[in-house]
């Protein structure tokens, strides 16, 4: 049985991610100099929160288990910058640690793909309204591009893709709610080899008990109930290989789970599980038993 380090090393060689892996210590070094940030759900779409000139570094890890076995273990650092208080630019790079190649790539977190793509994402908060102390309604449009560094699913030629998403929600000192949808489309002809297109919808409800609504230096905690739906549209949602649809790709899955976010003045951590509550996957794909994610977040202004 391979040790994880051998797998990681082989994987890194295979996907030509060694330069990206080399960047991780730099990212972590930057993060160690940063103040903490992080303010939102783990899996679901939300609105950006960076101020103008603000920087954030997120490092996320996600594992997808089918049965008792890990199917996909990914690490992904992401750097974000607030161009204005309403426009945020994010860039993330993949560090796939382990993959059995049996599951379709999904979104790792809402703003990070699990596919081995380098992603640039621009978020524009085109609407915001603050009706009271501690409360605001806001809506954000995201547009981005993905550039693959590895075939995903394995065997299907990688293809660049575009990503678009829309999310709207309400945040207050006690209640949070966001609803959003995301679409990712490969930039290839339908008959050319490419991974299937993806549609994701998410609903997030959050709560912070009144006794936790405290100012610094007290920690800021809140809990979320997150629901994510992943859906594909016919052949377009399935991988294409040599002019034929790859049978074991695409389908519909709905996952729900609790997550928690904690902010501690200089850094933040969030994470939690997602459990499938509905699954109708094409072909003979293993059914996920649980999806686990953990995000460390840091920021500075």
């Amino acid at each position, binding site marked *: 049985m391979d040790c994880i380090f051998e797998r990681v090393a082989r994987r890194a060689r295979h996907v030509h991610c060694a330069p990206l892996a080399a960047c991780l210590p730099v990212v972590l070094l930057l993060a160690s100099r940063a*103040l*903490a*940030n*992080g*303010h939102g759900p783990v899996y679901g779409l939300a609105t950006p*929160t*960076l*101020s*103008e*000139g*603000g920087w954030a570094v997120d490092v996320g890890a996600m594992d997808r288990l089918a049965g008792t076995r890990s199917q996909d273990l990914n690490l992904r650092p992401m750097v974000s910058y*607030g161009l204005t*208080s*309403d426009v945020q630019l994010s860039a993330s790079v993949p560090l796939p640690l382990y993959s059995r190649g049996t599951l379709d790539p999904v979104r790792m977190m809402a703003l990070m793909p699990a596919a081995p793509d380098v992603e640039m994402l621009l978020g524009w*908060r085109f609407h*915001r309204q*603050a*009706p*009271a*102390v*501690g*409360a*605001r309604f806001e809506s954000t449009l995201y547009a981005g591009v993905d550039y693959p560094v590895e075939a995903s699913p394995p065997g299907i030629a990688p293809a660049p893709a575009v990503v678009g998403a829309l999310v709207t929600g309400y*945040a*207050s*000192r006690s209640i*949070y709610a966001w609803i959003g949808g995301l679409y990712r489309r490969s930039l290839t002809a339908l008959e050319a080899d490419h991974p299937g297109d993806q549609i994701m919808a998410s609903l997030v409800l959050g709560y912070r008990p009144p006794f936790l*609504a*405290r*100012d*610094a230096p007290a*920690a*800021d905690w809140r809990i979320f109930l997150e629901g994510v739906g992943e859906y594909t549209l016919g052949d377009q949602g399935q991988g294409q290989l040599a002019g034929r649809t790859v049978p074991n790709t695409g389908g519909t899955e709905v996952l729900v789970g609790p997550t928690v976010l904690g*902010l501690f*003045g200089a850094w*933040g951590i969030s994470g939690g599980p997602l459990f499938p509550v509905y699954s109708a996957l094409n072909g003979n794909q293993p059914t996920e038993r649980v999806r686990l994610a953990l995000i460390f977040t840091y*920021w500075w*202004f």
Partner: protein
Amino acid sequence: MRIAFVVLCAVGSFVPGLASAQASGQILEIHQRVFGMDCLPCSQAVHATISRIAGVESVEVSMRRGGADIHLLPGNTVSVAQLRAAIRKAGYEPKETWLRARGEVAVDQGALVLKLAGQAPLRLEASASGGPVPCQPGEDMLVEGTIEAGKDQGPILVEQRKCSAESPAPGQHPRPDGGG
């Protein structure tokens, strides 16, 4: 030489920009109400942008109370518009501003104004809730009052004032949010 100096001073008193540059008045303390801050990072973002304003001595931002308490350095030229712009830059909505300021009262376009260093004078109005009328032109005035949301250039609705250099005892006058 002396004549030239006198002429320059006379010209300066009629040119608004020069007049404000000569004014020695300043804002001493501000409580700024902020809408939309729901989290610890939000208050930290507001704290960071306000702290960068030259002349700010200390800032305390409270998510719980939805506001920022700002103490300013002697000789500062910080304006309410500048402060509110910083809060918008952080992504949040500045509402009413309570302030304590000291400066000379003057008349500008028929209205009483408080001359402040490095910025346009702020118009003075008696508060609708029955506050005192401002001091007379030429007097130094220590004023406590509120600038309404959306009116970054004033006026100050005067709640308390002293027409001398003597300041009221600290904490004597409650602020709009009831905070200390």
